[in-house]
């Protein structure tokens, strides 16, 4: 029972942790509250599930899902930079459009992958026990993504991206094209979110059009919890922190379920968790420091 609980929570924390890294990029690095993720998460699931169901290589399907997410991010970025639609609304527009697109990609509202070959089942050929495939591949993937993001955010381009979120005016005056930076950031962010969706569909063995429900709140909650618990003193710390935040978020939901909370109170718990994390004194002081400037 406990093994199930631990492994299950860990798996979900890792798989959704990839999405949280994406949300961190838009929400904190770019300072852009991007709601497209509620559409790009099921987009990744839809692309991967459809291709796998049609017999394509699961890895190919998963990386095409990542590409699809990047396109969704570019679309949101274009709406914002070219047509000057506010960040919030451009995300909502993409999310709304993706709903129909996801249905078109899937050709139905639910694709089962119960007996399909996925990136996880392939691991069993190498002798990994089936119950641990998601844990192992999930932690490896998260590790690789954190390493790549860490390296990227320390390149010149990465610095420009961070500066775009920190101080748009300053970076403009240095001759950086802010629009391009925003589009790039959103593309990266949504690519990760869709990648996470592709992982989630394969881990739970089905894709459903409703998979986007609760994604943005899970993403924001995990980022905030991670920042409060692990801190933001260095880039590496934050990247590891937000994935840890994802683990804590799933853990809280699991604990609540295991404690026999009334099924109807679950959403209330989720909201309370985020409010408490936001209200925590540690974060308040940090917000004050942020306002002074780094």
């Amino acid at each position, binding site marked *: 029972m406990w093994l199930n609980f631990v492994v299950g929570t860990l798996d979900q924390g890792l798989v*959704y942790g990839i999405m949280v890294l994406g949300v961190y990029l838009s929400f904190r690095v770019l300072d852009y509250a991007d709601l497209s993720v509620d559409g790009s998460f099921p987009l990744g699931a839809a692309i991967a599930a459809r291709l796998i169901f049609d017999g394509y290589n699961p890895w190919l399907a998963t990386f095409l899902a990542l590409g699809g997410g990047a396109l969704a991010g570019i679309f949101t970025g274009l709406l914002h930079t070219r047509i000057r639609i506010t960040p919030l609304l451009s995300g909502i527009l993409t999310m709304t459009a993706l709903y129909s697109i996801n249905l078109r990609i899937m050709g139905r*509202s639910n694709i089962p992958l119960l007996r399909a070959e996925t990136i996880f089942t392939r691991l069993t050929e190498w002798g990994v026990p089936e119950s641990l495939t998601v844990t192992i591949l999930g932690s490896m993937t998260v590790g690789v993504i954190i390493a790549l993001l860490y390296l990227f955010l320390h390149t010149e381009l990465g610095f420009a991206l961070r500066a775009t979120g920190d101080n748009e005016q300053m970076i403009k005056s240095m001759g950086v094209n802010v629009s391009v930076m925003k589009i790039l950031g959103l593309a990266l962010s949504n690519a990760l979110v869709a990648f996470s969706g592709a992982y989630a569909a394969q881990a*739970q063995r089905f894709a459903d*059009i409703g998979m986007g429900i609760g994604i943005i709140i899970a993403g924001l909650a995990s980022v905030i919890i991670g920042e409060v618990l692990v801190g933001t003193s260095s880039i590496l710390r934050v990247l590891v922190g937000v994935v840890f935040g994802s683990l804590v978020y799933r853990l*809280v939901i699991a604990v609540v*379920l295991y404690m026999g909370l009334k099924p109807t109170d679950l959403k209330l718990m989720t909201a309370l*968790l985020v409010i408490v994390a936001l209200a925590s004194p*540690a974060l308040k002081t940090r917000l004050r420091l942020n306002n002074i400037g780094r």
Partner: protein
Amino acid sequence: MKKILGVLLVLSLVVFVAGCGSSGTAEKNNTSQEAGSVSPVKLGIIQIAEHPSLDAAREGFLEVLAENGYEEGKNLVVEYHNAQGDIATANTIAQKLVGDQVDLVLAIATPAAQAIASATDEIPILITAVTDPVAAELVETLEKPNTNVTGTTDMNPVKEQLALVKEFVPEAQKVGIIYNTSEKNSEVQVNIAREVAPELGVELVEVAATSTNEVLQVAQSLVGKVDAIYVPTDNTVVSALASVVQVAEENDIPLIVGEGDSVRQGGLATIGIDYRKLGRQTGEMALRILEDGAKPQDMPIEAQKDYELIINKKAAANMGVEIPQRLLEKADKIFE
């Protein structure tokens, strides 16, 4: 230090709220342990969301168990979880039920059934309110599942329902059909409607609503274009049925619906599934597993045995419809 306080605060809050909301399963476990002679049956229930039909199915299932001597707190432990539409949560629930080693799982609606089916291939799973168990890959065939899954499908008798339009309004030509394109369940029903429409001599006018907020507008768009409206068992549209009823009554358009509860809510009539009965039928199947040692692998998926004709007289008056006498005589249930 402050950070640690923060963590403690979060966790204590969680514990506190969870404690308040605890449905008292722990106490029940204790009493059942004391009863002691045989260990109680552990039943896990996973439901995808709150919805009147899904709730009715769950209640019907539990009724049958109660009528056959399974008393909660004595020889039955019920662990009921609801994912509130969140699929990640449904997976967490599925893992929990498997971890708790329940003897039997009742899974209500397709994503809930898929979540539990991918978590275990040993624990017997009874599904209900799943429209197409084969397409969802829960079973190999309806006749012989060959998996640890069996149960009941709520495949709606769409043909019979569309035919009802002609029974009430023989001269009807065009029938509007409102559904949410994202619901697999509705998609299947609309496909059937398209197939049978020609032989029934009606033409379908399809309109889609993607959320409950859109239903009113979508229903209004049908005014003047159709002679009747048909609403299948679409969760989104049924949740906002009041909007459709309003439009139908204001414009005298007969409204045929997909299930009994929708008639109670103001639909004109339906012939179809009663979710409480469907749940009861699923409960009967559970008894065969619990008492006769039947295996889900060999138990065919069942459809509702006897469809009911339900008519709402008040709705008929409001929609300007004359109810044919023979339908009144045939009706199983009449709302005055």
